[in-house]
C-alpha cells in the first residue's frame, strides 16, 4: 500500500520557494494523438484498420502491413512487467528534483511493449519467472503531455496518494481552493464535493450580498469555508481578492457564470448579451490576469503546490444552441480564451481543466425537459477530473451526445440545432 499523503507542514519562510522544473515536452504530431486521448482520460493506442495490429510508439504506417489506416482506439491496458529499475540519479532537472523514480518495461496483452512510470505499489517478482501483472494507462505529466503509467492490477489502499499519481493529477486534498461563485447551486455543490475530497480551505466568492443564496449560510459555518467578496464582472474586486489570497490559492475553479436563455430575437437590445460576456468572457480574462501569475509562481511550492485552474464552460461552446444563442456565444468566447490560458499556463505546470456540461438543472433551464445535469453530479465530475489530471470533460448525457455528434460532423449538428432540435 502507498503511505497516506501526510498533511503538509507550513512552509518555511526562510527558504527560497522551489521553482518548477518540467519533464521533456516535445512530441511529434502523430504522438500528440496519445495526448489528445489522455486529455479526456482514455488510454488509447493506434490500431491498424487493415490487419488489426496494435501500434506503439505512435507512427504513420502499420508496423506489420504498412497500411496508413491507423485509428486511435481505447485499450484496457493489461500487461506483464518485463523488467524495472529505480533511478537514483538523473541529469534531467525535473527527475533530479524527484528522485528516486521507478521505471519499467511492460509487455501489453495486445502486443507492444512500452516504457512506463511505475506506481509505488507495483510489486517486484518474488522469484524468477513470476509474472507481475499491471494495468497501463496514460496520464498527463506536468508539461501536459501523455506518459505511460503502470498501476497495480488491483486497487491498493491510498493508491491515489502515490507521489507519482499526485504529480500527475491535481488532488484537492490539503489544498486551498477558490470557488469564484459560492452562491450558485453549482458553487455550493462544489464546496461540498471539495470538503469531501479533503480540501484544506475553500474561499467562496460572493457577489451582490443583498441577494440571499439559500444554503450558503450553512456552508459558511463549516471550518474550511470562508466567504469572500468577489464579482468577476469588475476589475477592482478581482484585483483586490487576488491581493488578499492570490498567494494562497492552489486550485482556482471559475464557476461564475451569467446564464440567460435568450435567442437573438428573444431579447431586444444587447444588455443581457453584454452582461453574459462581462461575466463569462471578461470575468475569465480578469481572473487570469490577476491570479494567473502568482499561481504560476507557486507551481512547485511544497507538496500541496499550486496546481490547477478549472473553467466552467458549456457544451454550447462547441456548437451554438440558438434557443440560448447569446449564452452559447459567450461560452464559445470563454472556450477560446481558455485555450489561450492553457497555452499560457502549460510552460509553468499549472493544469487547465475545461468543463463542458450539458444543460444544468437550474432556475433558467426550468422549462426544459430532462435529462438535466444535477449540480452535485457536475461537482463530483470536476473533483474526479482534478484527481485524474484530465484536461476536458463533458459531464451529462446531453453533453456526451452532442460531443459525439459534433465530432462526427459539426455541420450536420449545426443543421440539426438550427432546425430546433436539441
Amino acid at each position, binding site marked *: 500500500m502507498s503511505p497516506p499523503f501526510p498533511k503538509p507542514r507550513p512552509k518555511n519562510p526562510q527558504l527560497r520557494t522551489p521553482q518548477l522544473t518540467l519533464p521533456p515536452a516535445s512530441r511529434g504530431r502523430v504522438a500528440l494523438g496519445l495526448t489528445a486521448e489522455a486529455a479526456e482520460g482514455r488510454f488509447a493506442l493506434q490500431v491498424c484498420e487493415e490487419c488489426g495490429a496494435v501500434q506503439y510508439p505512435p507512427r504513420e504506417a502499420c508496423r506489420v502491413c504498412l497500411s496508413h489506416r491507423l485509428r486511435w482506439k481505447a485499450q484496457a491496458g493489461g500487461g506483464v512487467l518485463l523488467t524495472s529499475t529505480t533511478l537514483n540519479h538523473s541529469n534531467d532537472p525535473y527527475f533530479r528534483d524527484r528522485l528516486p523514480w521507478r521505471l519499467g518495461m511492460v509487455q501489453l496483452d495486445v502486443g507492444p511493449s512500452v516504457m512506463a512510470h511505475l506506481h509505488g505499489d507495483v510489486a517486484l517478482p518474488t522469484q524468477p519467472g513470476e509474472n507481475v501483472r499491471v494495468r497501463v494507462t496514460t496520464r498527463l505529466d506536468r508539461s501536459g503531455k501523455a506518459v505511460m503509467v503502470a498501476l497495480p492490477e488491483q486497487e491498493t489502499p491510498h493508491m491515489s496518494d502515490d507521489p507519482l499519481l499526485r504529480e500527475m493529477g491535481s488532488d484537492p486534498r490539503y489544498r486551498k481552493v477558490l470557488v469564484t461563485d459560492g452562491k450558485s447551486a453549482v458553487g455550493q455543490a462544489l464546496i461540498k464535493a471539495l470538503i469531501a475530497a479533503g480540501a484544506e480551505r475553500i474561499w467562496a466568492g460572493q457577489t451582490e450580498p*443583498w441577494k440571499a443564496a439559500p444554503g450558503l449560510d450553512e456552508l459558511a459555518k463549516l471550518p474550511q469555508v470562508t466567504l469572500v467578496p468577489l464579482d468577476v464582472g469588475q476589475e477592482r474586486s478581482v484585483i483586490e481578492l487576488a491581493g488578499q489570497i492570490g498567494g494562497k490559492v492552489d486550485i482556482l475553479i471559475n464557476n461564475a457564470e451569467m446564464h440567460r436563455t435568450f435567442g437573438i430575437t428573444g431579447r431586444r437590445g444587447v444588455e443581457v448579451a453584454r*452582461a453574459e460576456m462581462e461575466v463569462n468572457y471578461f470575468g475569465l480574462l480578469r481572473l487570469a490576469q490577476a491570479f494567473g501569475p502568482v499561481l504560476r509562481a507557486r507551481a512547485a511550492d511544497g507538496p500541496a503546490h499550486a496546481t490547477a485552474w478549472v473553467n466552467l464552460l458549456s457544451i454550447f461552446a462547441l456548437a451554438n444552441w440558438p434557443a440560448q444563442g447569446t449564452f452559447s456565444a459567450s461560452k464559445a468566447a470563454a472556450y477560446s480564451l481558455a485555450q489561450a490560458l492553457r497555452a499560457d499556463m502549460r510552460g509553468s505546470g499549472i493544469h487547465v481543466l475545461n468543463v463542458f456540461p450539458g444543460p444544468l438543472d437550474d432556475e433558467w433551464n426550468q422549462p426544459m425537459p430532462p435529462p438535466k445535469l444535477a449540480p452535485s453530479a457536475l461537482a463530483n465530475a470536476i473533483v474526479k477530473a482534478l484527481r485524474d489530471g484530465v484536461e476536458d470533460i463533458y459531464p451529462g448525457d446531453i453533453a456526451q451526445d452532442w460531443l459525439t455528434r459534433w465530432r462526427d460532423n459539426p455541420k450536420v449538428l449545426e443543421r440539426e440545432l438550427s432546425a430546433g432540435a436539441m
Partner: protein
Amino acid sequence: MTTSTSTSLLASLAGALLTGRIRIVDLTQTLSPEFPQISLPPEMGQCAPFRIEEISHYDERGPGWYWNNFTCGEHTGTHFDAPIHWISGRDLPNNSVDTIPPQHMLAAACVIDCSPQVAANPDYLMTVADIEQFEAQHGRIPAGAWVLMRTDWSRHWSEKSDAAAFQNFDESGQHTPGPSTEAVRFLVEQRHVLGFGSEAIGTDAGQGYHLLPPYPCHSLMHGSGRYGLQCLTGLDALPPVGALIFAAPLKIENGSGSPLRVLALVEQMP
C-alpha cells in the same frame, strides 16, 4: 448706475461662502462598484451597476497619467429622475435631463424628518399628516421646492457599508421607506413641489409596487413633470427649511436620469 457689491445677492453669497456663513453639504453617496444598484426580477432589464476599469496608472499604458473608464446606468448611485423616466411623463414637454429648465437645478428644500417612524418600521409610508405636522412647525411648503424625506436609511451604507441592510430584501421583496400615495398627491396637487427626494434606492417605498397606483411617487410626480432624487445621504445635516439644493443631472440627450453630485447650501445663523 451699476449695482454696488454690497447689495449684490450673488456677491453676498460669495462672501458668505468665503466666511463659512454658508456651508455646502454634500448629499451624495460615493460611486463605487460595491454600491447597491436597484434590482428588478432577473428576467427584466437591469440598471447597470457602477463599474470602473483602469486606462492607465502611471505605467506602460500611460507613463505619466492615471485615468479610468467607467460604466453605469442612468439610475446608478445617487441619481436624478426626469419625468420621461416614467410612462406617465413620457409626453410632457422638457421631460428629459437635457431639456429640463436649468432654473430648476437650484431650489429650496423642505426636509421632513421621518427617521423615528422608519427606525420602528422600515416599510414606513410618509403620510399627509406628517406633512401637515411639518407645516405646523415650519410653515407652508413653498411651490417649486424639493421635499426631502429624511429617514437616516442612507447610514446603512454610508456608515456601515451594509449592502444587505440598505437593500433590505426578503422573500416578499424590498422593505424600504417612501411616501404614501396620498402624500404624493398632496405634494403634487396642493403644494406644487419641484420633486421628491429619498435616501433609499428609489423614491418609492420598497413595497411601492403594491400601492395604488403602483409606484405612486414615480407615477404621479413624473406624470406632472416633477423630479426625483434618490440614494441621498447627509439629510440629517440639513435644517427643516432654508437649505438650497443644487442638483444638475448630466446633459444626456433624451436621458431619463443621471448620477449626479447633489449639494446643499446651508446658512449658519450668526
